[in-house]
């Protein structure tokens, strides 16, 4: 399957990555090169195979559940310390609602 320029722009938009018009052709060629190489997976017979979710090897649970309790918190200053723009205990962004 080969992606057209409009699809490449749509993916960039979904990914929230600004793509200049001049960059579209190159990105399109690179992505199509990679997808073309990935196509070979189609030849593998996977009928009835349970998909592997998570990275745990055989015999290990994929994910452990914990008690649904608060374990941390009350650290607003630490959380905000790296913010590019903040006021008081808030992250700031451009105006969203008029």
């Amino acid at each position, binding site marked *: 399957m080969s992606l057209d320029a409009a699809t490449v722009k749509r993916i960039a938009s979904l990914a929230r*990555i600004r793509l200049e018009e001049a960059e579209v052709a190159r990105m399109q060629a690179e992505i199509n090169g990679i997808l073309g190489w990935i196509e070979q997976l189609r030849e*593998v017979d996977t009928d009835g195979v349970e998909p*592997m979710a998570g*990275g*745990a*090897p055989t015999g290990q649970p994929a994910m452990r559940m914990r008690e649904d309790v608060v374990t941390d918190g009350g*650290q607003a200053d630490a959380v905000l310390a790296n913010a590019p723009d903040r006021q008081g205990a808030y992250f700031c962004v451009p105006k969203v609602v008029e």
Partner: protein
Amino acid sequence: MRLTDHTLASALAALEAGETTSVALTEAFLDGIARLNPRLNAFITVTGEQALEAAKASDARRAAGKAGPLEGAPIAIKDLFCTAGVQTTAGSAILRGFIPPYESTVSGNLLRDGAVFLGKVNLDEFAMGSSNTTSAYGPVENPWSRANDPDTRLVPGGSSGGSAAAVAARLALGATATDTGGSIRQPAAFCGIAGIKPTYGRCSRFGIVAFASSLDQAGPVARTVEDCAILLKSMAGFDPKDATSADVPVPDFRAACAKPVEGLRIGVPKEYRLDGMAPEIEALWRQGLDWLAQQGATLVDISLPHTKYALPTYYIVAPAEASSNLARYDGVRFGLRETVPGSDLRDLYERTRAKGFGAEVRRRIMIGTYVLSAGYYDAYYLKAQKVRALIRRDFEEAWGKVDAIVTPATPTAAFGMDERQDDPVTMYLNDVFTVTANLAGLPGLAVPAGLDAQGLPLGLQVIGKPFDEEMCFTVGAAIERAAGFNAVPRMRA
């Protein structure tokens, strides 16, 4: 003997015997970094003053009889591990200036055991790469060079290229690293050192900047297999902060290095014999197997039939997870923010991410977004998860016949910094021997085993059963002893 020539094991013994101090070791490594890092670019951040303070405190602890297992050992930390109060960049411009308010579990474990941190080492951006040329902080140079072409600067491999180059050049006794598709084992092989990617779940991922969460694992690189065993013992362990951390005991990995291989069954997978593989790699593999047979191991031909599908599977699963993980870099909560007058929130996101991410990271986020998008999920992502299950099953069937699997670590020796940069897929093929262990969640160890005709190091890989890193250490140490690898890079402290 120069202090920087110590292995981790010999440095710890010298500290214990009172023959040196952590301050003396730390000063020696900092001096080496000052001389060589301007060329190698292995360190992004050198924390010299903090290291000397930590070394003084360590010497005081030792004098008080409170020495930990790594007491006073100067090591380097891959700049993917959050270190409290010290800039952590992940090799990306989007995290320039990011100061984590907390410590990753793995680096915290090393501090608990007395290690001294020299600084943060370079890597491919967000650990995506096999050459350490995608870092926003500049490429890392391999301290090795070709005998007949010493002026061509070589890559150290990636993504843990700074870790491997620093250790090979004697700028640290060891380093932390991470491995998502080969990022510990490939640079270790390219730089003539040892490195192990443990079983998925062995080391906590808490505080490690996430790339592909079902594949990422932390592990050490060091000059010897035994040094890796010492470091892994400290790094590993159950952590309630990581929901995929395995609650299993951490054995004495160091003791495993001295065990005999007699009677062990070593698997030789026929699918790892690639068309057009460098004859030197093939010969080294044969030599490594012969060494093990001479020590009493039995060689067993095995088949891992889905091996050829591992890389394409990886290049669906890893970008998919990366596109999700990297959604957090939005220019709002931390890191870079890029706007122009009149930018709305969406424009802020898009400009920030276009400017903050490099070309390889943008490419992988795009691929990941596409394979997860409506209408394509089943054809790509679900298909890849099924093939991944088959790759894992191949190994399960092999474990009925063998105790460990030995393969080459990489298809070639280190290549030039300006080679193989044109086509992403060509670069991806570096991980052809290593990526299967990530997909199946298995431990894999790289050990230096010989040199090619140009004098560049080549490595072998030992893959073990889940949570049987001890077997990797036993077999890897046996190869190491037989190889007697004592070549050194041209550039070293």
